[in-house]
């Protein structure tokens, strides 16, 4: 009897025995609406093959190493046989319970204790609440009661806990490279103090980082009174001082106390124009700005008021990604652009000092762009906003550009409303150049460097390295050994901020307290300790010095606090709360007077230069890096593996260029996969030499769509020669090409193609979703007319429910999450927060190249270019795409495709809606990951926690890959301090198990248990409304991620899921995810050129059809076709 396939049986419906048919929406005929990389857009043959396999083909043969799978199994088989001998596991090993003898106060075993502190940063400290287990900090959160952060953090604050536990931290005092002791150091200081007493400190120079600490400032004052001739210099490579200069000229405030800052208040801004100012990056622009901007951005219903953002920048930044209108302007032309805006504003009737300062003769010329109309409309919009508008210019732009911007803001009326003058801590400090001059003159015999790394990041034209080396006594107080320590005589271990007492000022000037979470791990000294010792004060045992500063501040006549008891009580509260709320530190501050006279003189003396970058006049921009900052996080594993939000590059930096420039200089080989790198989807770049003012550096190139033409972005902070095991060999050093006059951009550079290639570990092509409608966005007016536009690009689900029976979702709590794409800036704070909370390992560069990074939530960055036609032959690439960010945690699908295919039932659904991953059951078939349409599952290919991973350098170790492939032959063991950081409530996964986002199930269970404990013998088991937060939600500075209980009608997430623009990813697959998205709403200015393309990538055809219909039938107002069909809404996780 012949067996027939089921569907041939007569009479039976075709459904039986057939594979489920999915109606994948067709690709729009104009080409892909959203694309992740140029390769994706080009859809090269190799890329297509790469996509089809969940796990990249030949992943283990990527480097053509001789160790094939077969050889590997042979080796492993042999060692496995040996392991069986011994039978040591027959007897139950004796375990011990070791309590305290005297338990410290407040510690309950198993519960964490949160303490308030702050993360000192150069632009303003971030108020924190740090969770400590058994006296060691494990997770950093924002301090929710402090208005400067409202409980949010950014990626740097989250990653800073790993710096505390860095195994490469300095543990001993070192004198001339030999281990020494604190006592010897102090006696050496004694001798030096005698010398300083003789010449009143003239031979002493002190170089510090920007510390923003009133206690440090007070001690500095005392030290300067003791040694009046000492040279005190504050050196921050990313603070060139242009802003201060501009402010000093624009306002009648000099360099004396108090200094002035202009703090943007974006809660009052309707129109924001950002010229090369990445204020939406919380690390640069601060957390307050992101939050306030997002609050005015959020479009919760059709017709909601939204602010509008214009951005002009040389490279793509997070601000550019959020902007409604973005212009690619090279950094050297930002000044010209600003002048053009000023000219337009003057022509449109705005009066003010600035009008007289505009050079009316110059004309802005940008090759290939029609700028005039854009400037006209931008100016019109800004003018109509008036005091509700704000013009921001990057702090790296020259002082004259920033001064002109201040003048324009003054004319708009922004000063005082959207730009608030505030006092800044004024530290009278010499510049690094002055220190260098003094050193050259031979005046300096002792230099003490507090933190920082001036040998690495000083401007190259100072010749600082040689000058520094020639100084007889060099003392470096540092956390990690770096280039400066290498050449110093004394290297003093520093205490991390989590081990220190101190204070700081937040970005809005408020007064914060820093308290230690743990005693210094290696007996390090804090900066306060060292400053005290320099003045022959005893090293403080506790917070004596900080308390003294606080008492001085408190007993200011403004306060009514007088008695010691009141001071003590206030101090307790100050430390407990982490600060003083919005109370400023500086009491004496008068509103500054705008000084048009001084400003005019300044701008006449320093006119804005106008230059046009071109093929022969290349501009190089030495930019701040998203993961390294100025290089300080070089040895932080999480930061190295942190995918740059724009380029998605990990572990390294690259010279970023635009597609036009790549074409002109034939730097295209990164796009073609071809025979160079086999089938793997590794991004490669041509290596070039960049020469500017006589200095040459070598860099690999990465092509970034949306980059300004003939401008090269060089990210700072890499190429360190003296760093720990993580940072070794990563990237190339940009500091040699940085000078005092041109710390940020310079023109007149040339490049030379060297001919060889470099391979990057870039995550942008990993986990691609093959062009399905993942991002939904619309402009505001379209959203108003079609509130249900998210259904236009969706096919209705084929089936009502799957054949897999999900458990009845009738528990007390039903968890769900809503992510708002309108407010997500893409800062990746959630990514690092998740990594910290869930013990996610880093995997090393070679594994990232194979697509094996372990981050449970990733931010997918998409480009969209509906206005530019893509030509298949790779000769014409989109120049000016838009960018959208989409965070992707596990969708926690109700009909999860991963659950049905697990052969051992290691991933199951619970009654609360979570897709639960059971590590102990998983045997590692990886079928679940294969079946997941969102690609949010991650497999532990190796024992990343115990075996050495590859940093950026180690590409050619054992068998040409990395030590991970040595298996049991590699050294085993995790540095003990790294183990201390792990969250005890989350399993640390070993090799061979799958893992994924769990909605922070440990927090959910803890919240439920707390409520049950409180409830006791009562039925009140539901947790208080919105009382539990996932780690990503807690970190997100713009509140884009909202999580909650669907069964609680008061929960925010319930309301969000009812919004018309709520949609789930790939809804037609009928997975019914609990994580849904709010489509991104843009607010373009309809008069701006290109406005019809903003946010219209997928809706363009529909809009064109609509306009066509409009033209034909003027009475009919319905949208053709779709309004009637869209009765089936995509499931938004509503159970």
């Amino acid at each position, binding site marked *: 009897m012949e067996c027939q396939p089921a569907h041939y049986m007569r009479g039976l419906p075709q459904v039986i025995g057939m594979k489920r048919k999915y109606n994948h929406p067709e690709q729009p005929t104009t080409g892909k609406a959203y694309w992740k990389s140029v390769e994706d857009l080009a859809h090269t043959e190799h890329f297509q093959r790469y996509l089809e396999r969940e796990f990249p083909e030949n992943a283990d043969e990527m480097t053509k190493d001789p160790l094939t799978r077969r050889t590997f199994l042979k080796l492993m088989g042999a060692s496995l046989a040996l392991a069986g001998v011994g039978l040591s596991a027959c007897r139950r090993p004796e375990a011990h319970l070791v309590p305290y003898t*005297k338990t410290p106060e407040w510690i309950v075993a198993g519960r964490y204790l949160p303490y308030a502190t702050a993360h000192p940063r150069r632009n303003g400290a971030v108020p924190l609440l740090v969770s400590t287990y058994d006296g060691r900090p494990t997770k950093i959160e924002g301090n929710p009661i402090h208005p400067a952060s409202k409980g949010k953090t950014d990626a740097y604050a989250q990653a800073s806990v790993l710096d505390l536990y860095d195994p490469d931290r300095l543990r001993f005092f070192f004198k001339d490279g030999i281990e020494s002791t604190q006592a010897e150091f102090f006696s050496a200081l004694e001798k030096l103090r005698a010398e300083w007493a003789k010449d009143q400190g003239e031979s002493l120079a002190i170089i510090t980082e920007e510390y923003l600490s009133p206690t440090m400032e007070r001690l500095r004052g005392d030290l300067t009174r003791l040694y009046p001739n000492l040279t005190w210099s504050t050196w921050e490579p990313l603070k060139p001082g242009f802003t201060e200069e501009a402010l000093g000229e624009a306002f009648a405030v000099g360099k004396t106390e108090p200094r002035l800052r202009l703090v943007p208040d974006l809660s009052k801004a309707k129109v924001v124009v950002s010229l090369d100012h990445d204020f939406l990056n919380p690390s640069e622009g601060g957390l307050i700005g992101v939050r306030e901007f997002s609050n005015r951005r959020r479009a919760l219903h059709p017709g909601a008021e939204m602010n509008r953002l214009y951005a002009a920048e040389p490279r793509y930044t997070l601000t550019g990604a959020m902007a409604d209108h973005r212009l690619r302007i090279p950094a050297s032309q930002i000044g010209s652009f600003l002048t053009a805006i000023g000219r337009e504003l003057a022509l449109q009737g705005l009066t003010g000092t600035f009008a007289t300062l505009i050079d009316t003769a110059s004309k802005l010329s940008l090759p290939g762009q029609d700028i005039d109309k854009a400037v006209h409309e931008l100016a019109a919009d800004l003018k109509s906003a008036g005091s509700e508008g704000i013009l921001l210019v990057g702090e790296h732009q020259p002082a004259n550009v920033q001064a002109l911007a201040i003048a324009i803001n003054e004319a708009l009326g922004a000063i005082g409303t959207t730009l608030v003058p505030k006092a800044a801590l004024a530290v009278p400090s010499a510049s690094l150049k002055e220190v260098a001059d003094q050193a050259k003159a031979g005046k300096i015999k002792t230099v003490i460097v507090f933190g920082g790394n001036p040998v690495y990041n000083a401007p190259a034209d100072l010749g600082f390295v040689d000058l520094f080396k020639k100084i007889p006594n060099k003392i470096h107080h540092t956390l990690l050994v770096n280039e400066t320590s290498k050449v110093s005589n004394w290297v003093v271990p520093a205490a991390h901020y989590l081990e220190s007492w101190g204070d700081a000022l937040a970005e809005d000037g408020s007064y914060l307290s820093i308290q230690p979470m743990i005693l210094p791990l290696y007996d390090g000294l804090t900066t306060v300790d060292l400053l005290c010792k320099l003045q022959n004060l005893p090293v403080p045992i506790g917070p004596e010095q900080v308390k003294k500063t606080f008492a001085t501040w408190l007993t200011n006549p403004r306060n009514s606090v007088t008695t010691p008891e009141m001071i003590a009580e206030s101090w307790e509260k100050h430390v407990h709360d982490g600060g003083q709320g919005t109370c400023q530190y500086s009491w004496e501050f008068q509103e500054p007077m705008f000084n048009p006279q001084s400003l005019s003189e300044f701008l006449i003396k320093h006119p804005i230069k106008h230059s046009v970058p071109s093929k022969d006049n290349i501009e190089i921009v030495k930019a701040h890096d998203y993961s390294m900052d100025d290089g300080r996080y070089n040895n932080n594993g999480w930061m190295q593996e942190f995918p740059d939000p724009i380029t998605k590059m990990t572990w390294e930096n690259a010279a970023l260029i635009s597609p036009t420039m790549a074409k002109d200089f034939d730097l295209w080989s990164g796009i073609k996969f071809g025979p160079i790198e086999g089938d793997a989807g590794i991004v490669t770049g041509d290596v070039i030499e960049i020469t500017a003012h006589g200095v040459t550096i070598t860099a690999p190139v990465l092509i970034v769509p949306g980059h300004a033409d003939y401008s090269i972005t060089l990210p700072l902070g890499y190429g360190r020669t003296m760093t720990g095991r993580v940072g070794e060999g990563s990237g190339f050093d940009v500091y040699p090409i940085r000078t005092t006059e041109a710390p940020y951009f310079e023109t007149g550079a040339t490049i030379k193609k060297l001919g060889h290639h470099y391979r990057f570990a870039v995550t942008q092509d990993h986990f691609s979703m093959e062009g399905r409608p993942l991002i939904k966005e619309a402009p505001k007016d379209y959203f108003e007319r079609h509130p249900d536009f998210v259904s236009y690009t969706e096919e209705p689900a084929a089936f009502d429910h799957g054949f897999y029976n999900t458990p009845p979702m009738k528990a007390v709590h039903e968890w769900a999450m809503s992510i708002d794409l309108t407010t997500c800036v893409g800062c990746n704070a959630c990514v690092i927060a998740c990594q910290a909370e869930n013990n996610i390992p880093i995997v090393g560069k070679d594994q990232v190249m194979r697509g094996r990074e372990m981050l449970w939530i990733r931010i997918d960055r998409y480009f969209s270019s509906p206005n530019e036609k893509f030509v298949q032959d790779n000769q014409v690439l989109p120049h000016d795409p838009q960018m959208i960010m989409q965070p992707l945690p596990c969708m926690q699908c109700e009909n999860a495709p991963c659950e049905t295919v697990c052969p051992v039932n290691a991933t199951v659904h619970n009654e609360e809606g979570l897709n639960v991953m059971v590590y102990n059951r998983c045997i590692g078939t990886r079928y679940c990951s294969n079946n997941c349409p969102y690609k949010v599952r991650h497999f532990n290919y190796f024992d990343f926690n115990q075996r050495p991973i590859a940093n950026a350098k180690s590409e050619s170790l054992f068998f040409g890959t990395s030590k991970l492939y040595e298996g049991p032959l590699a050294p085993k063991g995790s540095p003990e301090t790294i183990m201390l950081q792990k969250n005890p409530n989350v399993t640390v996964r070993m090799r061979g198990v799958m893992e994924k986002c769990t909605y922070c*199930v440990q927090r959910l269970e803890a919240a439920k*248990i707390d409520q049950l404990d409180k409830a006791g013998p009562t039925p*009140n088991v539901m947790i208080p409304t919105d009382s539990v937060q996932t780690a990503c939600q807690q970190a997100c500075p713009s509140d884009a991620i909202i999580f909650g209980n669907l069964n609680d009608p008061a929960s925010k997430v319930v309301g969000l899921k009812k919004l018309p623009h709520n949609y789930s990813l790939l809804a037609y697959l009928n997975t019914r995810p609990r994580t849904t998205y709010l489509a991104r709403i843009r607010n373009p200015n309809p008069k701006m050129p290109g406005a019809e393309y903003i946010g219209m990538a997928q809706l363009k055809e529909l809009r064109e059809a609509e306009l066509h219909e409009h033209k034909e039938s003027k009475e009919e107002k319905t949208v053709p076709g779709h309004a009637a069909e869209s009765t089936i809404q995509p499931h938004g996780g509503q159970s």
Partner: protein
Amino acid sequence: MANVFPKWCNWLPIRLLACGVVLGTTVVVGMSYYFTPKYVSIGYQPVQPIAFDHSIHATQLGLDCRYCHTGVESSEHANIPNSQTCMNCHTQIRKDSPKLTALYDSWRTGQPIHWVRIHQLPDHVYFNHSVHVNRGISCVRCHGNVNHMQVVRQDQPLSMGWCLECHRHPEMQIRPTQFVFNLDWKPGAGFDQEVDGKRLVKEWNVSPPITCAGCHR
């Protein structure tokens, strides 16, 4: 061809099969009892550094469990008491007892006592004490009558199957919260375990997790 195989080879396959079946069954049955926590763990009674007698302290003196195991109502661990707790009384009582030398040494030097752990769950299990004792499960259910033990031993297997028995039928073990720390209380007059247990489960909205995330995170 000569007889290559002797005659007894005729019966060999059947004999081998029979032996194999018998052996296999024995191994499986034996392992399913002797290799499980029911046999391996129950009765584990290691020698402790100090011969602490629960029957004296808990029953004779009437100390509440929570006097020493302070974290049990608020934390996942019902912690072993620190030396200070012992010294609360033993600075006065039995000051010079040789049995308590280790305690006095610990108190004097600050070195903690290394108690031998008896009840140990695997690392991938996250058990929380507070939610059990606050919701009507007594210590006696998992630890047996510790209050009468002169040397503590493991009384229950603490295997996953055993935990699930109670999680699936909490009404069989639940008791009014005032009796949770009364290890000698038995459901007697006025409390029928099945009927009243079901009532309490309903009244208090008791729903112990049965899916994996309840204990495995």
